């Protein structure tokens, strides 16, 4: 049970967790009842999924002996900058098209 073993176990756990979250995000995309609710899957569950994968990659390549490898962090930064913008544009487009909403949805939307 040396150091490299534990790092590898940690990397494996992170990749597994990341995949599970990405999967859950996709399941949300498939099973939630209306467009606006489906939007929550890819904006959230997927962020953590990619985040865990990126940390796994960072750990793996930083412990290969080739020095610190941090450029994976950029993926996270750009994801955090772009995910809300794309979600907002999708939601705006959906409001514009007056897509059907789940009947239980409380509150009103704005006329576009």
């Amino acid at each position, binding site marked *: 049970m040396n150091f490299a073993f534990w790092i590898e176990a940690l990397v494996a756990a992170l990749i597994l967790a990341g995949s599970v*979250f990405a999967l*859950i*995000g996709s*399941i*949300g995309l498939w*099973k*939630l*009842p*209306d467009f*606006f*609710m489906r*939007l*929550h*899957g890819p*904006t*959230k*569950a997927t*962020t*953590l999924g990619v*985040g865990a994968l990126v940390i796994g990659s960072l750990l793996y390549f930083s412990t290969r002996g080739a*020095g610190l*490898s*941090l*450029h994976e*962090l*950029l993926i996270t*930064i750009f994801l*955090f*900058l772009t*995910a*809300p*913008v794309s*979600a*907002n544009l999708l*939601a*705006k487009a*959906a*409001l514009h098209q007056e897509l059907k*909403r*789940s009947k*239980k*949805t*409380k*509150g*009103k*939307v*704005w006329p576009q």
Partner: protein
Amino acid sequence: MTRRRFFPHPWLSLFLFGIWQLLMNDLSAATLAAGALLAWGIPLLTRRFWPDPPRPRKPLVALRLTLCVLGDIVAANLQVARLILGPARKLRPAFVEYPVALSDPFAVGALASIISLTPGTVTADVSPDRKTLLIHALDVANEQELIDTIKNRYEKPLQEVFPCSQTPF
């Protein structure tokens, strides 16, 4: 204001420098020099696109907010994962109108992004006067509670970091 003229956006410069170092993924004198040159040159060349740069104050509050948001992103992900895997008919989706007190357009953008990344909410629209956000929430029991949480957790610190905007819009 010669300092502003030759070094218009110190924060943008710092951000670009950091991005460059991460992109190159090594620390040699050449990359550092190239990064410094780009971090100085790009804001200078593009300053016409940024007439009113955001002027953040209180870096400690900003840092605390960043850490708080990162923690909340993890919590929000777990919560949304649970909601997705649970029975869909139990969800209580809602559109909520959120009154914005911030005046700085950059801060309003930051708040809208934070709302989209955290607790089961997506910013769907902004009113033309940028004073109201339309938020779609996946599962909300009490709208006022949601509004108060966003106000206290994210908007108050943002207000401290970006106290006012230079130009009225």
